[in-house]
């Protein structure tokens, strides 16, 4: 059952990701990305990450994608123009990317020690209580630095997007 769920949502994620790359309209790409993020949230649940699955849905599929779609609508982005493709990208990029997948698959599958099966429910530390304890005890400083990062991002976004004052 776990394997079937994994295969189903992995297939949805891969198909949506391929669709993201192949579609020529940004809105289609954005909706494909929402599909990828939703199926990844299901995979996080299978891996026992309840908190991170909900954060994925709320932050990524909710907030960030709304921002993307808002900008696409605001700028009225249309179908992208067919321009001259870079030959380097086409003829060197695709084989290199396939080689990367091959190497990673080989290492993960054959070189690393056997990893064992992922059984739903066997990982019990992904609930908000345990995450919160670890976050506020061991990772308190990175958490605070993150708040500074977000403040900088807010100021930067406002400065970049404001109207020029003459």
């Amino acid at each position, binding site marked *: 059952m776990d394997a079937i769920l994994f295969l189903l949502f992995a297939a949805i994620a891969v198909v949506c990701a391929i669709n993201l790359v192949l579609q020529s309209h940004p809105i289609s790409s*954005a909706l494909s990305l929402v599909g990828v993020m939703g199926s990844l949230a299901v995979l996080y649940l299978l891996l026992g990450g309840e908190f991170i699955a909900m954060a994925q849905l709320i932050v990524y599929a909710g907030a960030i994608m709304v921002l993307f779609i808002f900008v696409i609508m605001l700028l009225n982005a249309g179908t992208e123009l067919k321009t001259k493709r870079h030959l380097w990208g086409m003829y060197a990029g*695709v084989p290199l990317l396939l080689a*990367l997948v091959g190497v990673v698959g080989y290492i993960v599958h054959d070189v690393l020690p056997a990893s064992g099966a992922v059984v739903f429910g066997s990982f019990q530390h992904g609930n908000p209580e345990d995450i919160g304890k670890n*976050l506020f005890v061991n990772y308190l400083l990175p958490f605070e630095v*993150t708040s500074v990062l977000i403040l900088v991002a807010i100021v930067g976004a406002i400065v*970049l997007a404001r109207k020029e004052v003459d």
Partner: protein
Amino acid sequence: MPPLPIPEAAPLSWYLILSAILFVLGVAGFLFRRNIITVFMSIELMLNAVNLSFVSFSYKLKQNDGHIFSFFVMVVAAAEAAVGLAIILTVFKNRQTLEIDEVSSLKN
């Protein structure tokens, strides 16, 4: 035709290979697409793929540190999306285009 040998539960290596496939698709979108917003979405796809790796290793190591890392990645992605989309707005305001080939002032 014999039934496909599907195990009862998916091994952890499948998750890592899925992560690699998604990452590579993100790289492909980054390389081949010409729309600046789609390029940006490809970056988000790569970040998502790495998050899946973090959560998988977290399962393997029986610790939730990986979840916290991927949470930080999400926060950084949100900040990056806000600033990046503001940059895209500014580029569009100044040049009336979203094609990255036409924004090449720094070239040569």
